[in-house]
C-alpha cells in the first residue's frame, strides 16, 4: 500500500494501490464460465429460493439471449460472457461479527477501512465478497426503530418476502437492456433495506462490494424501500484488484422513495481497470419525495452508468451530483436519466468530468418531461476538463419535452485549464504547477465535498494527490 501522504511528482493516473491487492482463492466454489440454463438453475438451487425467482431467472435468460448489445456507447467487444464465471462462492457463511469472517476476507475489508468506518460513522454495514454477502450487521438502536437492513436473499424467505416479490426488478425489468436481463438471470447477493414510515435513519448505512476472483462477474441486487416521511442515507462502495482478464459488474439497484420521504444514495465506484461496469440503478419518487444521488466514478476499464430517477408524484425532487475521472485505459460513459412524470416536479443535474493520460470521459443524459409534468423544472449542468491533449471528453445530453408549461435549462462546457486564471495565480506568487493544481482542485471540490465523510477524505486525497505534479 502506498503512503498517501507522500506527494507525487509525476503521476499520470488515480492511485489505485489502496484497492489493488489480491487474496488467494481458498476453497472457493466456482461454477463453470459462460451462461447457460444449467448454470442459472444451479445458482437458483444453491440459494434455495422461491419458485417465482427461478421462473424470473429463466425468463431473464431468454430475454438476454434475444437482446442485442448496445449499438451506442463504448466498445464492449472485449467482454465475452463465455469467459465470465457468474457465480463464485467464498467458503464462509454470512456473519454478524467481523470475528466470524474468515481471516483473509476480513483482512481485505480491514484494508479497505470498512470495519473502522462501521465503528465510527455508520449505522449498519453489509460486505459482499465475490457472489455472496459475508457480513451484515445493523446497529441495535436503528433496528429497534423497525429498520430492516439485511441480505436480500435472506429477506426473500422472511417476513418481507412478499414485499420483495412486489418490488424486485419492477423498476428495472429484465427487458430494459441486455445486461439487466443478464442480472435477472444470475443475480446473487446484495442488500435489502426497509425504512418504516416517518423513521429517520440519522447515520448512513453502507454496503461494500469486493470482487476478488479473476474472470468473475458480480451481480448483486440492492433493493431499498423508504416509506412515507422516512429518511435514509445509503452508501455503496465497490472495488477489485486488477487482473489481466476481463471482470464484469452488472449489479442492479432499485430504490423506492415514498411520499415525503428522503433518500440519499452515494456511490464511490473504484473498480479495477479490467472491469466492465455495466450497472443499472433506478429510483422512483412519490409525492413530495426527494432523491439525491452522489456518484463518483473513478475505476473500471469501461463503464455504462446512468442512474435514473422517475419523479412519479407531485412536487417530487431529484438531485444528481456526479464526478467522473477517466485515466489511462479507461472509457467511462456516465451520466443520468430523469423522467418527470407528475406536475411540479423538479430536478437538478450537476456533473464534472476530468480526463487525462488518454482516458475517455463521456457525459450522457436524458431528461424526459411527460405530458403529465405540468409546471416542472429541470436544470442540467455538465462541465468537462481536459488535462492533456491525449485524452477525450464528449458530452451527449438529450432532452425530450412533451409538455409546454415547463422550464428546461441546460448548459455544458468543455475546455482545459484557463491560461488567464493560471497567470493570475502566478502573479500572486504561486508556481505554475501549484496554480494548475489549485484550479483542478477547485473544479472537483464542489462535487467531492458532497461525498460521504468516510469517502471524502479518501477521494479528496486521490484527486488532489494525483493532480499534484501531474499537470502541465
Amino acid at each position, binding site marked *: 500500500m502506498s503512503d498517501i501522504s507522500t506527494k507525487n511528482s509525476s503521476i499520470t493516473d488515480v492511485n489505485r494501490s489502496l484497492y489493488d491487492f489480491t487474496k488467494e482463492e481458498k476453497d472457493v466454489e466456482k461454477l463453470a464460465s459462460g451462461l447457460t440454463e444449467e448454470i442459472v438453475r444451479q445458482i437458483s438451487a444453491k440459494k434455495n429460493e422461491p419458485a417465482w425467482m427461478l421462473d424470473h431467472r429463466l425468463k431473464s435468460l431468454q430475454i438476454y439471449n434475444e437482446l442485442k448489445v448496445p449499438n451506442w456507447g463504448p466498445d464492449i467487444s472485449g467482454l465475452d460472457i463465455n469467459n465470465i464465471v457468474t457465480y463464485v462462492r467464498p467458503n464462509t457463511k454470512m456473519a454478524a461479527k467481523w470475528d466470524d469472517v474468515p481471516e483473509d476476507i476480513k483482512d481485505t475489508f480491514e484494508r479497505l477501512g470498512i470495519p473502522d468506518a462501521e465503528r465510527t460513522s455508520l449505522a449498519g454495514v453489509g460486505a459482499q465478497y465475490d457472489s455472496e454477502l459475508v457480513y451484515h450487521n445493523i446497529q441495535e438502536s436503528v433496528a429497534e426503530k423497525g429498520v430492516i437492513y439485511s441480505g436480500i436473499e435472506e429477506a426473500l424467505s422472511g417476513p418481507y418476502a412478499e414485499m420483495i416479490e412486489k418490488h424486485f426488478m419492477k423498476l428495472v425489468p429484465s427487458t430494459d437492456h441486455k445486461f439487466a436481463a443478464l442480472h435477472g438471470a444470475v443475480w446473487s447477493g446484495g442488500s435489502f433495506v426497509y425504512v418504516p414510515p416517518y423513521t429517520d435513519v440519522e447515520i448512513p448505512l453502507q454496503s461494500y462490494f469486493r470482487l476478488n476472483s479473476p474472470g468473475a462477474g458480480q451481480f448483486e441486487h440492492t433493493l431499498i424501500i423508504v416509506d412515507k416521511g422516512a429518511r435514509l442515507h445509503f452508501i455503496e462502495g465497490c472495488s477489485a484488484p486488477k487482473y489481466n482478464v476481463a471482470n464484469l459488474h452488472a449489479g442492479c439497484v432499485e430504490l423506492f422513495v415514498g411520499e415525503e420521504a428522503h433518500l440519499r444514495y452515494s456511490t464511490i465506484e473504484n473498480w479495477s481497470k479490467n472491469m466492465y461496469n455495466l450497472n443499472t440503478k433506478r429510483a422512483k419518487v412519490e409525492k413530495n419525495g426527494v432523491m439525491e444521488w452522489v456518484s463518483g466514478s473513478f475505476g473500471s476499464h469501461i463503464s455504462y452508468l446512468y442512474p435514473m430517477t422517475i419523479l412519479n408524484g407531485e412536487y417530487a425532487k431529484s438531485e444528481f451530483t456526479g464526478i467522473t475521472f477517466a485515466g489511462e485505459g479507461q472509457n467511462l460513459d456516465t451520466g443520468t436519466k430523469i423522467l418527470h412524470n407528475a406536475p411540479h416536479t423538479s430536478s437538478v443535474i450537476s456533473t464534472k468530468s476530468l480526463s487525462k493520460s488518454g482516458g475517455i470521459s463521456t457525459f450522457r443524459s436524458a431528461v424526459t418531461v411527460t405530458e403529465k409534468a405540468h409546471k416542472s423544472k429541470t436544470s442540467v449542468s455538465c462541465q468537462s476538463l481536459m488535462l492533456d491533449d491525449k485524452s477525450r471528453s464528449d458530452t451527449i445530453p438529450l432532452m425530450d419535452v412533451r409538455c409546454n408549461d*415547463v422550464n428546461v435549462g441546460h448548459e455544458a462546457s468543455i475546455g482545459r485549464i484557463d491560461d488567464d486564471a493560471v497567470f493570475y495565480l502566478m502573479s500572486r506568487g504561486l508556481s505554475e504547477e501549484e496554480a494548475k493544481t489549485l484550479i483542478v482542485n477547485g473544479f472537483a471540490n464542489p462535487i467531492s465535498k458532497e461525498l460521504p465523510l468516510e469517502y471524502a477524505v479518501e477521494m479528496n486525497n486521490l484527486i488532489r494527490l494525483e493532480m499534484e505534479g501531474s499537470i502541465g
Partner: protein
Amino acid sequence: MYTALNANKLPVLTWNRFNVNSKELHLSNEPDSAVTPKIITDNDAIKINDNRTLDDIVFSGSDKKTEAYILKNASVTKSIIVPQNSTLAAPLIFDLTLQPTDKLTGIFDISLEENSSANIMISVSSLAQSTAQYADLIRVHAANGASLKLTCLQLLGSSAVSFNNIVSRLENDAKISILQIPLGAGTALASATADLRGYHSSASIRSDYIGHLEQDIDLNYVVRHYGKKTLSDIKMTGLLSDASRKTARGTIDFHRGCKGSSGNESENVLLLSEKARNKSVPLILCDEDDVAGTHGAAIGTLDEDRFFYLKSRGIDEKAARQLFLDSAVSRLKNLLPEILAAKIDNYSKEVLFNESV
C-alpha cells in the same frame, strides 16, 4: 417505389428508444418533375452552369446514402462559381416554385475562389395544399479568405416532404454563415455540416422555425473543427404551436490538432401548445484540450408575468399567442430581402394565420 433513408444522423449515437439517432425518410424514386429555377441576380461576375463541379472535394457530410440518393436523382444541377477577389453584395436568388404534386431533387455546387464573397439564397415554395417532395444537396467550397452567406427558405405545403441538406468545406480564414428557415412542409428536414479545415475558418449556422399544425421538423447541424483557431456558432430558435414536433441535433466536434478553437451552440424553444413536442440533442465532442466548447438551451413556455401583463391590457391568452406568432414571422421577414419576405407573408396568411386550415 421509395428509397428508405436514415437522414440527419447523429455523429455519435445515444439511446435508441428516444428515436433521435437519425430521421427515417422515404423519398420517391419516381422521376423528377420539370421545374426550372428562376435566377435573380444583377451581377455579371458570377458564373453559373449546369454541371457538378465539386465532386472531387471531400466533405464529411452526414449520411452518405442520403447524399448518394440526391446525386443519383437530381434533375436540377447548378454550379455557382464566385471568382477570386470578387464581392457580390446583392443576393443571388434561386427561386423554385413547385406545383402541388411535384417532385424535385437538386444539387447546388457553390465554389468561392480566394478572397471572394457572396450572398446566395435558395427559396422553395408551393401552394398551401401540396404533397410535393423536395430534396437538395448544397455543396460549398470556400477557398482561402472567402466568405459566403447562404440562406435557405422552404415554404412548401402542409403535406409536402422537404430535405434541405448543406455540406461545406472551408479553407484558411474562410467563413460561412448559414440561415435555414424550414417554415413549410409537413415533414421538414434541414441539415448543415461545416468542415473547418483551414486556419481561423469559421461557421455560423442559424435555424429559425415556426412549428405549426402537425409539422414534423428535424434539424441536424454539425461543425467539425480541424484547423487551428477555428470558430463555430450554432443557434436554433423557434416556437412550436398546435401539434407540431421538432427534433434538433447540434454537434460541435473538436478534432485533435484544432488548437485554439472555440465553439458555441445555443437553443431557444418556445412551446405554445400542450400538444407540441420538442427533442434536443446538443453534443460537444472533444479530442483536443486547447479548445473551448459551450452549449446552452432554454425550453419552455411564455412566462406567466408576460401573460398577466398582456391580460391586464385586455389581450386574452389566444390573442397573446397570436401576437407571439406574428412577432416570430416579422423577425423572419426582417432577415430576408423584400422578395422573399413577401413569400413569407403569403405563406403566413395562407397557413399560419388561417384558422380554416
